[in-house]
């Protein structure tokens, strides 16, 4: 003779097991789908490369830069940054020749975060350009160290 109570208890356990199994599958499925479709498109590296190219092409002609053209107004004009952008971007250009000259635009705190590891850090681009500097009609070798840091965390990370 069967134990009726035991059969009933066993079936209840089976139903809990079935629902639990479906629940686990459901959570797994949703997790995979949301993970796949919520991939962030980080365009900051492309943006900084474009910005660097724009600045270099604007301040120099045929790789010759005039010392008069190397100032924050000119670099800012070349970059074409909007008002909001200056809080999200930092541009640091150091021109080394027989002397040196520096131009810095934007939020300088971003520079300190360059090189930090983690997801919520600015995207930084460090480039070196070998140029000729025109000063008083004379040409001399110069090296431009250009650092561009872009924050824009909300929309990229």
């Amino acid at each position: 003779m069967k134990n009726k109570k035991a059969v009933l208890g066993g079936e209840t356990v089976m139903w809990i097991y079935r629902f639990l199994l479906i629940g686990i599958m459901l959570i797994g499925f949703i997790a995979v789908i949301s993970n796949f479709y919520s991939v962030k498109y980080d365009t900051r590296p492309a943006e900084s490369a474009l910005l660097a190219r724009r600045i270099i092409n604007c301040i120099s002609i045929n790789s010759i830069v005039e010392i008069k053209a190397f100032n924050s107004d000119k670099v800012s004009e070349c970059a074409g940054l909007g008002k909001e952008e200056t809080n999200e971007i930092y541009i640091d250009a150091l021109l080394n020749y027989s002397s040196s000259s520096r131009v810095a635009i934007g939020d300088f705190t971003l520079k300190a975060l360059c090189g930090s590891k983690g997801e919520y850090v600015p995207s930084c681009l460090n480039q070196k350009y070998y140029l000729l500097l025109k000063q008083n009609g004379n040409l001399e070798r110069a090296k431009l160290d250009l650092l561009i840091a872009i924050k824009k965390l909300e929309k990229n990370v």
Partner: protein
Amino acid sequence: MKNKRGQELLLMHIFYIIFIVFILVSLIYFTSNAAKGEGIKKRVGAKQIALLLDAAQPETIIILSSDIPIKKEDNQIIAGKENPFSYSFFSPFKINLVAEEKRIEISEKK
């Protein structure tokens, strides 16, 4: 005499089948929504246009083939009407967006 236990079992199975069908339908809806999601289209569209404008030179005309409504405010590209996504671009040039014709004209100076 009615088989009460059999009825209970049948009801439980019917409930279980309905439950599974409901979950399957929800999953299909969720997946298709995520796959063709407007959110992704807006995000990608705004960023693509912003990058194009970052790289564009004067005397360039960009014709957009996207069906997402696009607006330009200052140096922001705004994609979509409901929950729009905006992304900023940088350009020293004058940028004119003709929204009806989905055309962007870039000319020399601001």
